């Protein structure tokens, strides 16, 4: 399509080239070409106007959305989030207690936040079916030992470029093994940690 050809001045000079060299001294052609000089002067003025507008818009209080916009966005998000998966923690004649995958993940992420050099990302939790039957039975009364479903936790993470990855992952695993019984009241089960990315520090 002709429209996408590189736009040029009458003298054949690429406009893009004039723009990208606007802060450099004039070359031999530009020193004598009036078309180039005129275009350059105009673009220079545009460049300054562009920077001024960018700065002015960035700091213009009037150029921000009203707070109601965020409220409306978050209302929709909140209303639609409840579809997340539920995990049965305990069940007896008095009723059931379940936990959302979301709530479980937040305990895992809070634990990860205490380990420097690693950021918790997506967290996926499954129940191992082999042992899930035991969670439906009434626990013996008075027993305070940790019980519940056998969790299989898949946690993805990003790490800082300069850390010892095996040691950091091991530290994170230990933190999660402690945090789940403390925060939720069941055993941590199987924890699979994947390092998928490096983050910039």
């Amino acid at each position, binding site marked *: 399509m002709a429209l996408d050809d590189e736009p040029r001045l009458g003298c054949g000079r690429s406009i*893009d080239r004039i723009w990208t060299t606007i802060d450099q001294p004039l070359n031999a052609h530009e020193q004598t070409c009036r078309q180039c000089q005129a275009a350059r002067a*105009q673009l220079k*003025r*545009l460049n300054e106007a562009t920077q001024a507008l960018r700065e002015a818009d960035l700091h213009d209080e009037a150029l*921000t*959305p009203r707070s109601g916009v965020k409220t409306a966005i978050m209302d929709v998000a909140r209303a639609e989030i409840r579809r997340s998966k539920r995990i049965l923690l305990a069940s007896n004649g008095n009723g059931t207690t379940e936990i959302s995958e979301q709530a479980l993940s937040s305990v895992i992420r809070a634990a990860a936040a205490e380990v420097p050099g690693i950021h918790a990302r997506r967290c996926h939790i499954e129940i191992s079916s082999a042992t899930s039957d035991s969670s439906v039975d009434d626990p013996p009364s008075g027993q305070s030992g940790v019980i519940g479903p056998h969790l299989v936790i898949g946690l993805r993470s*990003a790490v800082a470029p300069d850390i010892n990855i095996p040691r950091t992952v091991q530290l994170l695993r230990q933190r999660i093994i402690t945090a789940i019984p403390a925060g939720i009241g069941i055993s941590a089960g199987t924890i699979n940690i994947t390092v998928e990315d490096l983050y910039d520090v």
Partner: protein
Amino acid sequence: MEDYGSGFEAEPGLDEGSIVARAQDGDLRAFEHLVNSYQGRLFRLAYRMLNDRGDAEDVVQEALTASWRGLARLQDVQAFGGWVYRLATNRCLDVLRKRSTRTEHITDPQDILSISTDGAGSDQLSDPAYAAERTARDDGLTAVLNTLPPEQRACWLLREMHGRSYAEIGATLKISPTAVRGRLARARIQIAEGMNEWR
């Protein structure tokens, strides 16, 4: 320092990729952080595209709500920024398409100048406090900007005001990065010439 309690201040320096990943898992505070980080930028883009606060706010709301709904399908967490910019840009272009079926399209710089000084073409000039803070240069640039065809204006705004990459702008407008480069060059010279006339 005890003031945070909840929110991402509790985890300073969390990278955007990790925040996006958490929002993908349905973490509302992570998503709220993204809303905070993008709503202003998207509003400035939409306002410069549409010249109407209400329409611009609608675009921000629709784009970020759509981003929440589509988050799970986002493969690369690093691509979130480009993606919400794309959602917002395409909504702006939709709004302008709908408007152009209702009103005449204005292409002559002289027309838009006379309209905006009447206060009918944009709402910014009707606010005296706002107008006083703005230099004539800003007004000249934005007035000429408004004479560009919508896709070219989007191209210029995304690059010059928001620093988005050629590849990303190309993906948004469904053209090649080379075509983005060409369209930008054409937009720049057109704006520069328009500003001459404004002066």
